[in-house]
């Protein structure tokens, strides 16, 4: 289906009218359809009020009053019915259905958003008692009993453990995943297709199986102890397919015209990947890696089976158990004392902050599509082009002394777009 705008101008060629395409090739934008009328707002508010009142009546008089949650759900259902009736009083059936659908869709989206906000806020609220103490960030739990007040002990050992474990895991997973992603996106063939299928399938395989795998191989057969490196391996097993698949998706988004231009200029596959594909996909790859890290940092189940739980600081990943934040959150709340629960939620809140920071960094880097440059990248690329230009001019003026001025003018204009110039 052709989306081009047909302009008003019509050209007559040998008796036939030929519509002339406008030269502007901007993508068409969808029409703005939202019109808010007073009557609609009144209908929504009226139905809402009536629904709340009816449900209140139902709850207090007919069925015994039970829960706030049930009240909200039932009044929402009643609200939808009332609203449908109200709208159908002065609109036809399709309009009524349209309005009801809009209300339903809006409220479902609001529920999802509210759930996310609740989850995040609740974690911080329950952990607040622990989070306000500075010792929470500077001490470990070595000398802390379940009932020790919150102004002693902290989660420093778990923070350090999380950073060490995630660092090692991503150190394994990122290069491996990236190389495999480059392979399956750049060297098409049956093997690449097989790897892609397997990686796709493994992305969603339960992460506890990675933990179980490392537990049964590395721990039971080789090291015979819980330690940081086992946890890192388990995390890496989980993270490899995630990183690989996300990078593959990003690499496939690199425009084919760029790759083909590179090949047409005579560069081989290595140079094309090194100087065209990877720089073009850089921001997307960074996003993929950071989001993979965010996933790995929050994984509990692989760590649960492999890291062992400790209360003391352990910097050495190959000797003895090493705590991490999700594991601390999980194990602390099992105790059931108020202080332990506060510590568990505090650890979860710290973990959440880590994930949020990673996520924001990923958004800041990865907002752009492939090939779109930030202003700094564009400047750097232009400088690279100018450098190349100067180099070519020197070479040219050495062989053909007469031609350099014309070249200089021409290349000065093209400098920012010269492909692969940021080397």
């Amino acid at each position, binding site marked *: 289906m052709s989306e081009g705008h047909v302009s008003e101008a019509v050209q007559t060629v040998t008796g036939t009218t030929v519509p002339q395409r406008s030269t502007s090739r901007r993508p068409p934008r969808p029409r703005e359809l939202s019109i808010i009328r007073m009557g609609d707002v009144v209908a929504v508010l009226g139905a809402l009020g009536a629904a709340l009142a009816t449900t209140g009546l139902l709850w207090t008089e007919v069925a015994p009053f039970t829960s706030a949650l049930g009240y909200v759900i039932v009044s929402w259902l009643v609200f939808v019915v009332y609203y449908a009736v109200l709208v159908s009083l002065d609109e036809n059936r399709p309009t009524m259905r*349209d309005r009801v659908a809009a209300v339903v869709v809006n409220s479902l989206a609001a529920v999802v958003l509210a759930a996310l906000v609740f989850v995040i806020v609740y974690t911080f609220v329950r952990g607040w008692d622990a989070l306000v103490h500075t010792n929470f960030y500077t001490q470990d739990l070595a000398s802390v009993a379940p009932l020790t007040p919150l102004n002693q002990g902290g989660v420093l050992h778990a923070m350090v453990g999380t950073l060490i474990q995630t660092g090692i895991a991503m150190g394994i997973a990122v290069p491996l995943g*990236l190389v495999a992603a480059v392979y399956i996106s750049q060297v098409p063939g049956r093997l690449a297709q097989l790897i892609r299928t397997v990686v796709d399938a493994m992305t*969603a395989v339960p992460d506890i199986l990675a933990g179980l*795998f490392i537990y049964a191989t590395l721990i039971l057969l080789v090291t015979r102890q819980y330690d940081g490196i086992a946890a890192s391996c388990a995390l890496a097993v989980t993270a490899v397919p995630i990183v690989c698949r996300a990078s593959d998706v990003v690499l496939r988004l690199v425009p084919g015209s760029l790759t083909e231009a590179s090949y047409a200029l005579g560069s081989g596959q290595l140079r094309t990947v090194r100087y065209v594909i990877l720089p073009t996909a850089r921001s997307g790859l960074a996003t993929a890696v950071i989001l993979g890290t965010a996933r790995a940092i929050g994984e509990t189940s692989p760590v649960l089976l492999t890291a062992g739980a400790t209360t003391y600081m352990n910097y050495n990943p190959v000797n003895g158990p090493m705590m991490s934040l999700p594991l601390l959150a999980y194990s602390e709340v099992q105790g059931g004392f108020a202080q332990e629960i506060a510590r568990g939620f505090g650890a979860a809140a710290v973990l959440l902050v880590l994930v949020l920071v990673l996520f924001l960094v990923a958004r800041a880097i990865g907002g752009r599509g492939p090939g779109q440059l930030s202003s700094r990248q564009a400047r750097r690329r232009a400088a690279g082009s100018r450098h190349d230009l100067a180099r070519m001019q020197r070479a040219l003026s050495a062989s053909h002394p007469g031609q350099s001025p014309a070249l200089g003018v021409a290349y000065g204009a093209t400098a920012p777009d010269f492909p692969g110039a940021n080397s």
Partner: protein
Amino acid sequence: MHSDESATDHGLAALGFSSGQAGDPADPDTAPGGSSPRASAPRRPAPPKRNLKSRMGTSDIAFRWFTRGGGLLVLALEALVGSFLFFRAYQALHKAGWSFITAQAWNPDGGSFGIAAVLIGTILIAVVAVIVAIPLAMGSALYISEYAPRALKRLLTSVIDLMAAVPSVVFGLWGAFLLQWHIIDLSHWINDWFYWIPAFHVAGVQRGSTQPWANFYTSSTFDAGVVVALMITPIACSITREAFSQAPLGEREGAYALGATRWGMIRSVVLPFGRGAMIGGMMLGLGRALGETIAVALIISPVYAIQPHILQQGTSSISSLIALKYQEETPFGVSALMAAGLALFLLTLVVNLIAAQIVARSRSGAVSEV
């Protein structure tokens, strides 16, 4: 851009790269046909077919082997995980035989163990999660792609991605400490009115009584399912939203031109276009729900008997079984856990492969979904 391109042409011409000089005057591709405009030119014998095989340089060969090595390493790793599960599970499977599928108790060293109870628990939790997640995911996907103001779309997309990145232990804590205590009343209400549906039956509760309900309704399949639903909603939502927003503009405008309301347009254009992605996205969510460990382990209280009543306290799942039992097991017990893990592995593998197929078929071209 346009002015730059013409400038590039000049520059290339100055360097001697213009197409006129580089092109071969006798085009070998059109010559053998004979029907070309230059047919009047004296015919030459058809030139031999050019050999189009590319000869790679050393660096490219090295590059190819290097990346192939990386790919094979990943393949080997994944194959190792799968085959090791098979290998270690064999001992337990061999001993248990068919009773592994039918037995409900989990007591490997006592001789009787099977996954009937945990498998059904796993599936029930996942089914509850999917049923709760379908409207949430579809609604939020439709909202973002069709209803949200344009300025909000990007932000909401990021928020949904963020929701997918929230660690499962955070969801688990929320479910265990907040949600399940507030959902008791809803469970009770459902049980009160729909107790005649077998799944909603709760043993030991009299209708209309005011017993302390916490002992009956907490730590149930329903609680775990609702929390897992929130965890799989962003996955299903982002896949579905992508398909929705790719619904062709021409058909959309056509529907409007024929007088459709917005909902009419969505029903006749967007939903049919995104149906494959909706199904695939939910299947991917189902795969995730089947394997969810920590949130489930935090909420449920394990019961190793088939628990078909989803509101009743006590259920179990394969992944939480592994998480709760791995430490106290003998080598044979670990083998039994491996067998349970293998069952989960195969289950999620099948679900994921089907989902990936459906999603891949429903989308045109590759799109980002990190």
